[in-house]
């Protein structure tokens, strides 16, 4: 689905009984996200990137402007199929799962609510989804607290894609994960995008992660969109000072890395120079 964001603003009341100066969380944001692409939304804490995600998810009503998903305004139409088509994955993998429910039941919940297939077919689908996110069928009976953060985030992704949504909003989905697990979850998301043509909004403060997975990126600063472009263009020629500062402060591995090639002889790791 194509997402079109037009003149979007969100203000939050501040102070006692909202008497303070209202806080402008989003300020006239315009953005087009084409079908099947991954759009990165980047900015520091408080830049408004999560607020934008919440409006797209219909969790927050904008003060002005609108979000059109395939030409439909979800707030205007109150479309009952909306939740089925627009799903989310959040940073805190633990808080996103019911602690008293097996992960299989959590993955199945959407299928139950929307009465998709027979109960037996739903069970089968859960097994298929677990395999899709790289976990074995035995995980269905596990409780969330017995899993690692990376495993829980895989479950959250399985739950989110169970209903075959057209749009996935991922708000810092890998920020709490270790580097190696992060790489595995990013590969999973990229693979899902290839196989399902989902449109994805990937919210992150980490430019290097965004570069790894996104086609385009939008940089936010104090509620405003300051730069949008193809991911390589943004990395090679950042135009806005905010983007340039983010690039400058991003810790990176600048040295040329020579990783060992695996030699068949057990005489030590050989190196390519």
């Amino acid at each position: 689905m194509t997402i079109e964001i037009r003149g979007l603003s969100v203000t939050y009341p501040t102070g006692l009984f909202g008497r303070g100066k209202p806080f402008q969380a989003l300020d006239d944001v315009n953005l087009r996200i084409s079908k099947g692409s991954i759009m990165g939304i980047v900015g520091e804490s408080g830049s408004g990137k999560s607020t934008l995600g919440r409006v797209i998810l219909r969790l927050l009503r904008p003060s002005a402007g609108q979000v059109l998903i395939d030409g439909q305004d979800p707030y205007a139409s109150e479309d009952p199929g909306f939740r089925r088509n627009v799903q989310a994955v959040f940073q805190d993998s633990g808080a996103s799962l019911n602690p008293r429910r097996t992960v299989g039941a959590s993955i199945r919940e959407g299928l139950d609510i929307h009465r998709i297939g027979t109960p037996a077919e739903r069970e089968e689908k859960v097994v298929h989804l677990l395999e899709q996110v790289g976990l074995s069928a035995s995980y269905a009976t596990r409780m969330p607290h017995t899993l690692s953060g990376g495993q829980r985030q895989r479950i959250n992704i399985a739950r989110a894609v169970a209903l075959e949504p057209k749009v996935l909003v991922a708000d810092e989905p890998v920020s709490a994960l270790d580097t190696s697990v992060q790489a595995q979850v990013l590969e999973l998301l990229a693979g899902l995008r290839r196989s399902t043509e989902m449109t994805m909004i990937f919210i992150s403060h980490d430019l290097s992660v965004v570069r790894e997975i996104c086609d385009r990126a939008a940089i936010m600063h104090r509620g405003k969109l300051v730069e949008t472009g193809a991911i390589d263009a943004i990395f090679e020629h950042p135009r806005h000072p905010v983007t340039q500062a983010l690039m400058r402060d991003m810790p990176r591995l600048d040295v040329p890395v020579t990783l060992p090639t695996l030699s068949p002889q057990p005489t030590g790791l050989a190196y390519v120079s």
Partner: protein
Amino acid sequence: MSEPILSLDQLNVRFATSRGSVAAVRSADLAIFKGETLALVGESGSGKSTLAKALIRLNDAPFSQARAEISGRALLRVGNEVIDLVSASRSQMRQIRARQVAMVAQDALSGLNPVVRIGRQVAEALQSAFPGLTRTMLDDKVVELLDEVGLPDPGKIVSRFPHQLSGGQRQRIMIAMAVARGPQLLIADEPTTALDVSVQARILQLMKRLQAQSGAATLFITHDLGVVANFADRVAVMYAGEIVEVAPVADFLRQPMHPYTAGLIASVPGSHRQFPRLKGNAPDPLSVPSGCAFRDRCPAAMATCEAAPPMATPTMITQANRQARCWRTAA
């Protein structure tokens, strides 16, 4: 090379849990020298924070419920004296925590008392190290310190409470309290992980500047290899409770010796993929595989790896100051 400020000799940390005994740190050998920043990297659960806490015995009662059993030696050089942090008495440890070894944690908010003004908290830290200071000297020194760590308008900040400051400002306060004592060793446990990149860059700059002034050693715990590349002099890599590689930062990045290190670097977003990225998960601390702990996930594993744990051995590949705990590099 000069004498190390701290040298670990076969340090072990075990915890008794309801499901059995966990060896959180196993046979750690490591030396930290004056003026250097040694990064301790590894994924969550690899034992890096446990190792750091063991050094100032924060795993002891009354700080921690799970009593840690520490064995081996951790020798801290204080002037002409050498103190073993493993066997030091409680009063010796109090002295060491007040003067020689300071710690900055990730969560600055939990390190500060929420109901005490900033000025008094910094003054307390100073007083514990320098009991002789008079009230006015103390007040002046506090303002000076806050200025030193780059806080704007320090005269006003002393009367603030922690919740009135931003995350970056609170971390600066923590650093001020740590450096106030003139420690020989600063342990920084993920001090910038919770901060925005621009704030992180400024905090790291500040730490570098203070270190250049004092000549103290820093043990910098992080999982961010980008930060390591820009900030550390040497790197120690931990995996499943063991230090698996120690190397100067340039060598570590250019030519990692241990397959785990290589996989970790290959997993960094944007790095090129000559080497396979890490697959799977670290082992459950209760059931670490016999032999090399990494062999299940290792793309270079061979029969020997199952037999016995490889010892950290200096290798021939580069300088003698490199070590890797791997049969392939030991050959």
